[in-house]
């Protein structure tokens, strides 16, 4: 098997840490984003030498970040559910920067959340969102509009 040429991992951190943090902050809130960013790079570092395709490392990092955001959002939902059962959540559910809309973003299904963040926070076209998420342009469009529908319901309530 021909070995792919991988750049030194530090160059991935230098090039993408800031934008990944922005993606994560929009997905799960700024405090969780710090942890998620570290988790993203640790997972990436672990898998890196076995990577067989180095043509789109940025999209690869985004898929890992999306996974970490999904894990964090699940934890957050569980804690909130526990809170509703009369048990206090271990961390404050509301951060200063949070308002209803960002809590609603956090509660979206993973693909819709990522698609909405790529579309509106990064202002990407559907084709680029598709590339970033490794889905088709049409699927990107559907995820954005489904996500928006849910957000409208949540915010207008």
């Amino acid at each position: 098997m021909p070995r792919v040429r991988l750049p030194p991992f530090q160059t991935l951190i230098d090039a993408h840490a800031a934008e990944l943090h922005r993606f994560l902050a929009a997905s799960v809130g700024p405090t969780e984003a710090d942890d998620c960013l570290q988790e993203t790079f640790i997972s990436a570092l672990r898998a890196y030498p076995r990577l067989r395709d180095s043509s789109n490392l940025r999209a690869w990092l985004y898929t890992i970040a999306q996974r970490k955001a999904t894990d964090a959002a699940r934890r957050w939902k569980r804690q909130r559910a526990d809170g509703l059962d009369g048990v206090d959540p271990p961390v404050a559910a509301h951060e200063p920067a949070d308002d209803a809309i960002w809590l609603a973003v956090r509660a979206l299904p993973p693909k819709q959340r990522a698609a909405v963040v790529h579309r509106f926070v990064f202002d990407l076209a559907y084709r680029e969102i598709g590339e970033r998420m490794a889905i088709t342009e049409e699927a990107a469009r559907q995820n954005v509009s489904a996500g928006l529908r849910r957000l409208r319901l949540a915010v207008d309530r």
Partner: protein
Amino acid sequence: MNDLERRLASPPARTPHFEDLAAGLRRRAERAGLLDVAYATADSPLGPLTVLVTPAGLVRIRYPDEPLEATLQDAADRISPRVLEAPERTDEVRRELDEYFEGRRRSFDLPLDWRLVRGFAGDVLRATARVPFGVVTTYRAMAEAAGSPRAYRAAGNALGSNPIPIVVPCHRVLHTGGGLGGYTGGVARKEYLLELEGSLPPRG
């Protein structure tokens, strides 16, 4: 663009402390055994030197003439792509280099990782590593020490591609006739090191 979409364009922002994040990442990577190559650059009298360290030891010292990207890509190709800037991991090497340049150290006490040299070149460089401070020798003598007295040209090539200059003191190897010969970092640096050690031959 409606109100909802406008609000989505300004997410909760808090500038993260990227240096803290990076330091935390390095600590976690090291604990998890994922820091295969650590590097850092620091000043020296010979210009900024980049030091590369693996868990086995010092593997490479880079002179500033070589582009940093080239050095790091070479390490990614030949050692592991898990290359991270991690000054803490290179502290010990930096400290010994500083002491050497200040004239307070005559020999290095550092584990070396020889994986970037193979075969005859490796034998030549290991022999060179035993040449003490203040002593000079010849390409021919190093070829002989490596077991092939006639291969002094190959010995010269091996020394010219020494991945760990200064610590593996290829600057102590001169032409048989007394000429300085070449040097990875340029002859001016070779002169500087020999002068530091008090063994620069008189100009003739």
